[in-house]
């Protein structure tokens, strides 16, 4: 795959960088957090992002998107990750848009993809059922009842699940997993917002005899396991790009601090022990960069190693994000652990992002299994 961005991708990246710098610097995230807006994002900003076409990057042109591909949206997320920009873009425009694009019928695509691309609709994917990623053997069931399905079960860690207009629900239909789409206001849905340590929006959601018509089924009954896995890999790759943005920013901020902070009559960046730790981190970051790029471009270029590359990226970036965010706080010393200073945000984001669709160990195991051991 290509490890250097093409012109289109570079353009998207530059635009995103400008946007993040001017519209959503870290102070924007802090403002949203401190406003105690339970949605955890700013709808005006989200509108601007949609206006830039970002919500439609993965959506075909016929449904109002630009079809710029996974690498295109990935480089945007990298820049948004730098400033911790909160938005419903990941759940809506990456996860759910991909599910509908891959599994949905023509009507559903027209209905939902168009509204995603225009920015009028947000969606969330209700998949997880326990404290650790486990996309198979779901306990949430959908039982056929005439032309309808009755859904029962409990979901957790539903990203953006607190306020999304629609939910895509993964449920066991006896011989496999099926996907259903439902309005958040449907009877039988109980949503409990779970305030997270990274101040983003997630929810625990339970379904009690939620009744959905068969037109709410996305894809074949029992037939979505493979599609879910494919969309999860796209999502893992994109979230890795976001995390990689966070890694870079935390590192850059720390590097600047090392260059500016005086101690014992000299800059602390002149202490060799810190220099070596910084140099080792930098080497790891270089490796991360390659993993993210290779994974992002593997989808658009049709690699035969997509799942392994997604796991490589998610595991490696997850590990290095912890390394860098821990070191960043430590190297900042006392101010690093105060709420007043931004660097702690990266620590918090790193741990939540690690859990999204598989933690480090999950992807290490998966990498080994895909490699035959």
């Amino acid at each position, binding site marked *: 795959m290509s490890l250097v961005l093409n012109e289109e991708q570079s353009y998207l990246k530059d635009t995103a960088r400008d946007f993040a710098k001017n519209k959503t610097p870290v102070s924007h995230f802090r403002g949203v957090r401190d406003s105690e807006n339970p949605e955890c994002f700013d709808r005006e900003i989200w509108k601007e992002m949609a206006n830039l076409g970002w919500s439609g990057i993965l959506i075909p042109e016929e449904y109002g998107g630009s079809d710029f591909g996974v690498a295109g949206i990935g480089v945007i997320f990298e820049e948004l990750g730098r400033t911790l920009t909160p938005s419903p873009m990941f759940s809506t425009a990456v996860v759910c848009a991909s599910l509908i694009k891959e599994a949905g019928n023509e009507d559903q695509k027209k209905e939902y993809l168009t509204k995603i691309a225009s920015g009028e609709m947000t969606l969330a994917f209700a998949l997880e059922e326990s404290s*650790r990623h486990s996309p198979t053997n779901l306990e949430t069931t959908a039982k056929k009842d005439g032309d309808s399905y009755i859904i029962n079960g409990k979901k957790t860690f539903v990203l953006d699940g607190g306020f999304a207009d629609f939910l895509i629900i993964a449920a066991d239909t006896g011989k496999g997993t099926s996907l259903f789409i439902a309005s958040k206001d449907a009877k039988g849905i109980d949503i409990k917002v779970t*305030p997270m340590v990274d101040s983003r929006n997630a929810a625990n959601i339970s379904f009690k005899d939620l009744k959905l018509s068969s037109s709410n089924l996305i894809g074949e009954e029992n037939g979505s396991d493979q599609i879910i896995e494919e969309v999860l890999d796209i999502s893992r790759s994109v979230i890795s790009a976001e995390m990689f943005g966070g890694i870079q920013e935390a590192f850059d901020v720390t590097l600047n601090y090392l260059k500016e902070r005086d101690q*014992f009559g000299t800059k602390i960046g002149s202490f060799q022990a*810190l220099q070596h730790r910084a140099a080792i981190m930098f080497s790891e970051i270089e490796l991360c960069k390659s993993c993210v790029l290779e994974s992002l471009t593997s989808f658009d270029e049709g690699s035969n190693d997509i799942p392994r590359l997604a796991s490589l990226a998610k595991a490696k970036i997850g590990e290095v994000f912890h390394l860098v965010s821990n070191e960043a706080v430590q190297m900042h010393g*006392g101010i690093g652990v*105060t709420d007043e200073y931004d660097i702690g945000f990266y620590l918090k984001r790193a741990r939540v992002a690690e*859990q999204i669709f598989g933690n480090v160990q999950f992807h290490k195991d998966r990498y080994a299994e895909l490699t035959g051991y």
Partner: protein
Amino acid sequence: MSDLNAFRNETRDWLEANCPESMRTPMSQGDVVWGGRKVEFKDPDQKLWMDRMGEKGWTCPTWPKEYGGGGLNFEENKVLQEELMRIKARPALNSFGIWMLGPALLEYGTEEQKMQHIPKIVKGEIRWCQGYSEPGSGSDLASLKTKAEDQGDEYLINGQKVWTSYADECDMIFTLVRTGPLEPKHEGISFLLIDMDQEGVTTKPIKLISGKSPFCETFFDNATAPKENLVGGLNKGWSVAKRLLQFERNMIAGMGFGSASSGSSKKSDAKPSSGLATMAKRYVGEKEDKLNDSGLRNKIIDHDMNSQAFALTLRRAAEESKKSNQGPSAASSIFKYYGTEHNKLRYEIMLEAMGTNALGWDGAEFGPEELAITREWLRTKANSIEGGTSEVQLNVISKRVLELPQ
């Protein structure tokens, strides 16, 4: 030996008669008794227990009797601690005075200073906080700028301290101040005791990444302190400060370790068990008794082994210092360094085990214990910064213990 047995019997009888039943129950963070003028007891038994222990000097069992301490030797104190543990007695009194200021005063204070301050520490009448760090000083403590000017009978103090724990609840503060503005950095510093109940001293709490904290900023705006409050001599505060830091390190290392070892520490005949593994099994599941996540299991093994090795090392250091009869040395940096890094790792492992359940900030969807672990995980990040960063500890080890060239 029979003396010691007699002491044990006396102690046991006394504790039986004097430790209120309610003081033998498990306690939460909020039940810690810190003493001082502003103390508010949640339960009259707390006051009773503190007063009785303070009267006997057993809040500071090894301190000399003439200053109100218990006057116990190493062996007797061990017996006392065993007997306290036997009845699961709560600590009667915690304080920075006990952990840090008292030991330093005993070494560096004048007779008058000892007589004036130590009995009040023992009895919990005065609560102390520590005023060392300043904004911008960081690990380079000696770069401090708070100045104390000689006004004849007293010092006039102006400046600012940070990381003063519980400053808003304390009566007195022991500080490092600059008294020799023209002296070389380390030679112009004095160790000064300042009353906080005066107009010139104000405090402001600091919020941490983990949320509310006991830390404050403390401001001195024409505050005063009588000259007899200078400890260790004019411009000689740096020696007192360094010694006191060793006591602090020792305490932090001990605390860090306390929580880290709870899992794998083991009592006499109890079957060995691992707190981390037991907890991880609850979230991750098991298969033939083994944790269902081999990567996590290996991390827990490493951590448990190191917990045990570290606990043994603390015990060995205690046995060795008993032989040599000295207080904490530069080696305390090893405990501070290792204990805090080890404790940080412990919480990272808990987070890995608990997955998204350890990532809540508040709300009823998470268990209170889970929310506490999340906050504590964030709080541990300060362990390797407060009381001298890990980097400073490693510097001390390489300089003082390994004697590497500087």
